[in-house]
């Protein structure tokens, strides 16, 4: 059972990726971007919940009319050097008003979580074996920030802020 951090709590993942074992009771499936694009019409009519997993070069603008159907976007990170996902998240929240679950997945580590959360990610799927209780403390690394940010509800927070 995969565990992840969602809104600063450790939870059991309800979602399955398309290449994993059959969809469980939750019937919540994450498709690769290419597959969603190719099979969009048939999946739209499926009776479970749908998510899409995007890579750093996938054109997220292509999803802009799909958010009534897609409840989750998983953004792939290839390591610390991969920074495109931060802009993808900021765009999903600010430009495309995506209010569903925004998940960071791949080679992510504790030290990125503070930045990711401020770009609008609310769920963090760390690599297997990562100590999630330690990772949880990352959100408290800073109590202040100079920039506006997008919280999970897509609300733009004033710049130069002190956390509540």
């Amino acid at each position, binding site marked *: 059972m995969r565990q992840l951090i969602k809104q600063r709590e450790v939870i059991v993942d309800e979602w399955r990726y398309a290449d994993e074992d059959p969809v469980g009771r939750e019937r919540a499936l994450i498709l690769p971007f290419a597959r969603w694009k190719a099979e969009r019409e048939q999946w739209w009519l499926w009776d479970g919940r749908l998510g899409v997993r995007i890579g750093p070069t996938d054109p997220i603008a292509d999803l802009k009319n799909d958010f009534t159907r897609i409840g989750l976007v998983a953004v792939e990170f290839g390591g*610390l050097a991969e*920074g495109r996902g931060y802009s993808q998240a900021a765009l999903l929240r*600010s430009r495309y008003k995506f209010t569903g679950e925004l998940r960071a997945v791949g080679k992510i580590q504790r030290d990125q979580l503070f930045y990711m959360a401020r770009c609008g990610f609310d769920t963090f799927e760390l690599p297997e074996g990562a100590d999630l209780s330690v990772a949880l403390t990352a959100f408290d690394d800073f*109590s202040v920030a100079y920039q506006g940010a997008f919280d999970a509800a897509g609300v733009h927070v004033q*710049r130069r802020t002190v956390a509540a």
Partner: protein
Amino acid sequence: MYQYDQIDQSLVDQRVAQYRDQTQRYLAGQLSEDDFRSLRLRNGLYIQKHAPMLRISIPYGLLRPAQVRMLARVAREYDKGYGHFSTRQNMQFNWPKLELVPDILALLATVQLHGIQTSGNCIRNVTADHLAGVAVDELEDPRPWCEYIRQWATLHPEFSYLPRKFKIAVTGSPADRAASRVHDVGLHLRKNEQGEVGFEVLVGGGLGRAPMIGHVIREFLPKKDLLAYLEAILRVYNLEGRRDNIHKARIKILVKAIGPAKMRELVEEEFAAAKDTAPVFDAAEFERIKAFFAPKVYESLQDQDVISGKPQEFRNWFQYNTRKHKVAGYRAVFLSLKSPTRPPGDITADELDRVADLAEQYSLGEIRSTHDQNVLFAHVKQSDLFALWQQLKLIDLATANIGTLTDMICCPGGDFCALANARSIPLATQINERFDSLDYLYDLGEIQLKMSGCMNGCGHHSVGHIGVLGVDKDGEEWYQITLGGSTGGHDASLGKVIGPSVAHDDVAETIERIIHVFVEHRQEEERFLDTFRRIGVAPFKAKVYAPADQAA
């Protein structure tokens, strides 16, 4: 100058705590070498040839005496008793212990200094004209904008993992002493036809491999749009910049690949699309920042004759090392870190302490680092100049060579840097020995000599009137010579290679031959750069590579 409030101080303190934790995790084997590398770089820590190198941010080159004394203390207690000013106005320590860096950063935080984003693929220290606020040709002081940008750029959640480093320079004067045309983004304060002040925006300049001059992508940007426009540039770069090859990852490569017109289109498109969600100009916040840069309280004085009856040595110093100040009765004074016996840009702990004292006594308690690796006292009373000169002589900071050949820029090079192909400091010694007559240097006029130990170009060789670049040939140190580079104002240009590289021991000789050609062709008081532009590379090439007996 800007003073931290509780928000600024908390952020820096918490950053120290975060880095302490990261260092401990690394030392305990919980963070891989690679992952720690990316984190330590964001706090200014490189692993160098002999030891780590720690780079301390000096935002737009401005320091208070307490900060300079703290740098002295760090140099004394954690280094070998000296520090080095870089061409981006920062200070570098070459011998700190990795495990003690959190302690150093904690000390620095007590005087509002830090190493945040002085390295790594993120937005680096924002630099400005070192004469900001006192220059006679200035339209508006760029420093409040630098501070405004600094805060926005610090730990920016979206732009902390860019394809490559990102440097911004701001200038309020046409002379462009901030070298803004060779920055990733250059911002020039200017007036539009309606008389409003805003920014001309350049993108895609840079030194290092493939040096390039930036392109104007916005002729006039209203001030209120500054952060929104920078976000548009950064977002385009973050998403479109190359990440597959570190040498092709700077924004200049993107601009070159798609063309400046396309870059302008992408940025303008993003700027328009983000207009409802981009940072809104916070006028009250900007005014709060700006108040810290209000003009100093000057005495009401007249300009006076400073040099009559004084020794020639002092008169030279006055001519070369001081600059006009916009307030009558004052001068801006360069403290030369280019004496013949000093590695360019180096300063000892004792000298730093003394500089702090002298700044309190003579320059309204303010110290500046310059792009040319010198120190500047911006507010010296003309009546104090002679006394200050005498004091500076005692600590070897009064060499009257600012703007001359020996006011050379030089990176730490192969003596310290793990990246370097060749040493650069011994070249400085070699050149100082060869050009040891100040009178001769004065006759030659303004010549900018810039030397880098490798293609990364920390010594800005590509924009030197004379540029020297260390290259490696089968394990030997060789040096490529370029002529005709310039960062100044609207005539910024990149140097042209004159021919094959020269051996280490021949560099000073080569420069002397170049100077001979210049003297031979020079018209009246022409600058080296202007002579070069008039006659081109051929006459230089002919003499530099001639056999020894025909070179004279």
